[in-house]
């Protein structure tokens, strides 16, 4: 696998934003520290993923589920993350259920509306280009 190390890093801008929001106004973050945090985060992803896939294997599953991630975090002593993540997990699952609309008519209308929106914006873009 010819993946460069950079590809396994998270986008710098996202990391920077999270750190900035986390730290008090008076504190800045140095370039070295930011890239260290970014790399730490990538290692964290791998670490949690690896643990989560062990959790999935324990339950004789090949698919990595959200619950495996939560169990992994508990195993890795990140219990402080668990409560908010459980809330997020729940609301994520709820929003997914809402997305799958049982009434087929509504679902297709939504799709049509979305397509119309895309077409409208595409037309606007064309008009703008023509104006230039």
């Amino acid at each position, binding site marked *: *696998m010819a*993946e460069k*190390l950079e*590809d*396994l*890093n*998270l*986008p710098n801008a996202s*990391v920077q934003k*999270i*750190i900035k*929001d*986390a*730290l008090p106004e*008076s*504190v*800045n*973050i*140095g370039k*070295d*520290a930011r890239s*260290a*945090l970014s*790399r*730490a*985060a*990538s*290692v*964290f*992803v*791998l*670490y*949690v*993923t*690896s643990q*989560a*896939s*062990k959790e999935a*294997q324990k339950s004789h599953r*090949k*698919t*990595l*589920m*959200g619950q*495996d*991630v*939560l169990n992994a*975090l508990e195993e*890795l*002593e*990140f219990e*402080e*993350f668990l409560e*908010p*993540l459980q809330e*997020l*997990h729940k609301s*994520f*699952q709820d929003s*997914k259920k809402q997305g799958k609309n049982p009434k087929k008519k509504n679902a297709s209308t939504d799709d049509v509306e979305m397509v119309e929106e895309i077409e409208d914006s595409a037309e606007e873009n064309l008009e703008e280009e023509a104006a230039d």
Partner: protein
Amino acid sequence: MSRIKTIMRSDPDCNIISQDAVYLVTKATEMFIEFLGKEAAKTTINTKRKTVMKRDVDSAIDQVSHLCFLEGALEWQ
């Protein structure tokens, strides 16, 4: 979020990953960055500086026991 998915897929033991697993790992990673950043900043503030340096991050890793998986990980180039 797609970068996180890429990293997750690079794990050889990992085959199929559900959407909510990727979502949770993404959120957990955000929380982790915030957590590690704040821990590092504690050292910065304690030493009366205003810029968090790499050594503050290292110090946070040493101090928080369950961050031991990061030891040596930050010495990559």
